[in-house]
């Protein structure tokens, strides 16, 4: 085999991206978990973690060490293969989604023509992973919680995809890089304010945001992870790093969801005033959305399970359909 220049560069680039994306996901999980403890402290008039490192910056390191040093227990009677496979099945799709998202004009894993479709295909796998984790735990309450997760995720996939379909109708492409390129310029070019395509675009953004919250099992829709009434959840039987991986996967899902929202609606790497586009704007917008996710979580109580499903089937799906129909009409007329 001839080892050519391009092959070497290709391999190096591939390695760098793989390592970089995993590191990005892990680093985000670590420091978003710190933000998750500092932000409610600001809202609740108290200090968050501040003993470990200045401003608590080494707290995630301490948490990681704690999780790593715990014994990995497998319940007797649990399905060992599925039990150990479930965390992997949850985190790998999240990282794979990051591979197709364009962080800036030059930074991006792979620029696939069907990038958007790839992202949503990957992100559907984590539901299976969670359900398997709950079922393989050999724990009554974990299985009930896992069944709830499936119902919740299915219910919220639909408005999410409807909104994206409406968007694709407008942008005429699945390629994420091109979608961002179409939003070049100042903030009135962004898709969220693309009112000539559909006057309900800001509403579509809100629907997307809500569905993204529900897909990552966050915020008012966190039936499975916060102290559910049964003080259990799909992850009860996981200890140590098994739980740690689910934890990282949750934050990775949030990062993926916020990145998608930025890319699809908020102009990706473009500056709101058209000046200096670049990676920094993407990161600013993505972290602003992550802060909004955390902000929403700590402001409201939790919905009931049927309230959650009602919201999706009775409110979000009709609104998404109205938006889709309106977009189609506007496309035809304008």
């Amino acid at each position: 085999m001839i080892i050519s220049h391009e092959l070497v560069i290709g391999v190096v680039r591939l390695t760098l991206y793989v390592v970089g994306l995993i590191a990005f996901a892990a680093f985000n999980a670590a420091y978003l978990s710190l933000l998750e403890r500092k932000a409610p402290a600001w809202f609740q008039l108290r200090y968050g973690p501040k003993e470990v490192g200045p401003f608590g910056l080494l707290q995630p390191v301490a948490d990681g060490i704690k999780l790593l040093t715990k014994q990995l227990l497998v319940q007797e009677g649990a399905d060992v293969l599925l039990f150990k496979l479930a965390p992997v099945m949850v985190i790998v799709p999240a990282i794979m989604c990051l591979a197709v998202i364009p962080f800036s004009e030059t930074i991006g894993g792979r620029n696939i023509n069907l990038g958007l479709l790839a992202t949503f295909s990957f992100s559907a796998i984590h539901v299976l992973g969670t359900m398997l984790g709950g079922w393989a735990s050999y724990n009554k309450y974990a299985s009930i919680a896992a069944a709830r997760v499936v119902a919740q995720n299915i219910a919220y996939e639909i408005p999410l995809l409807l909104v994206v379909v409406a968007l694709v109708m407008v942008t005429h492409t699945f390629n994420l890089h091109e979608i961002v390129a179409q939003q070049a310029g100042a903030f009135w070019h962004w898709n969220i304010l693309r009112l000539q395509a559909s006057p309900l675009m800001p509403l579509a953004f809100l629907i997307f945001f809500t569905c993204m919250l529900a897909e990552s099992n966050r915020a008012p829709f966190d039936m499975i992870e916060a102290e559910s009434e049964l003080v259990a959840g799909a992850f009860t039987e996981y200890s140590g790093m098994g739980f740690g991986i689910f934890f990282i996967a949750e934050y990775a899902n949030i990062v993926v969801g916020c990145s998608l929202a930025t890319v699809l609606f908020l102009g990706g790497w473009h500056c709101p005033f058209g000046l200096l586009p670049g990676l920094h704007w993407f990161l600013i917008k993505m972290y602003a959305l992550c802060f909004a996710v955390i902000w929403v979580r700590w402001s409201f109580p939790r919905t009931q399970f049927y309230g959650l499903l009602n919201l999706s089937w009775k409110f979000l799906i009709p609104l998404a359909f109205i938006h889709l129909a309106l977009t189609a009409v506007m496309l035809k007329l304008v």
Partner: protein
Amino acid sequence: MSIEAQTLHRETFILNLGPQHPATHGVLRIKLTLDGEYIENAEPVIGYGHRMHEKMGENRTYAKFLPNTARMDYVAAMFNTHGYVCAIERLAGITVPERADFIRVITAELNRVASHLLWVGAFLIDLGGFTPLLYTFDDREQILDLLEAVTGARLTFCYYRFGGVCNDIDDDFIAGTRKFVARLRSRMAMYHALITKNVIFRRRCENIGPISAEICRKYGATGPVIRGSGVAYDVRKAEPYSIYPRLDFNVPVYDQGDCMARYLVRMDEIVESLRIVEQALERLPSGPIMAEKVPRILKPPKGDCYFNVESARGSFGVRVISDGTDKAYRLKLRSPCFSNLSIFQECSRGMLLADALALLGTLDLVIPDIDR
């Protein structure tokens, strides 16, 4: 359709909402028989915190029992002491000087506000919203600081004595209380905007957990539970004691009987208590804080006396049977939370578990008060 096809085979399973649980405030065990997520039967099992206060009442002299009264319902401890002290005073025929009566009402109503603020925070935590707890605790902290400056303790006040109170209040306390009343009034609008009008909170509380007035009467539930079901029973108005007949206040009553009604009753009671405190501060007379000639070792005459006060949770009653010695023959403590809990079994049939927990939250239980 044949009979076999009509009767569906339903499997129920028993779940223990065990003594340790974030949603039961204290050591309460509820044996739930669940059909899926619907409750078929919820049987509360109490007694995990039984400390035999009533027996201690028979073995200690009247004065020595005073610290015990604060340990039963420690969130609203003043009322327990108030009930006990007033029962003994009625039996022994001791009249309390006016200033002491006013001080008692001021501190008791402040304690009611503190208890309700704690309840709002804890109820929201049960529902999943963590932030309002911190805000209500911030307000409650100020009340506890005021009361600590007067009594020396934050939760287990041992402040009232037979014939009055043990320490006098000073100008700092009066000024601090006035400032606090003004501050909390301005924050009530914020609480209503953050909690009461929140659509998620409303969805979880409106039409959830209906309790009819009939059930309340059957089980003897009192306090905000019965006032949220349309019955205007408040011991301060029905059997007035202390200086309440001289003060002008309303008793909030709501008809719907759901969780939202009980929540609104308590929020309105906070505002009414602030009014009472303001009026009492204005009319505070000067004078002695302790009745004269109260013997050190109290030996009330033989007799039987019952006295009930309106605690933050309902009607707290004390029955003393005295046989002329310095120790009671029998001391019976009627705890409001016990009667409030007893409606849970009947009311939670057929409810979803999450809704039943919201109902349990609005009953405002403090388990040490049930177990005594």
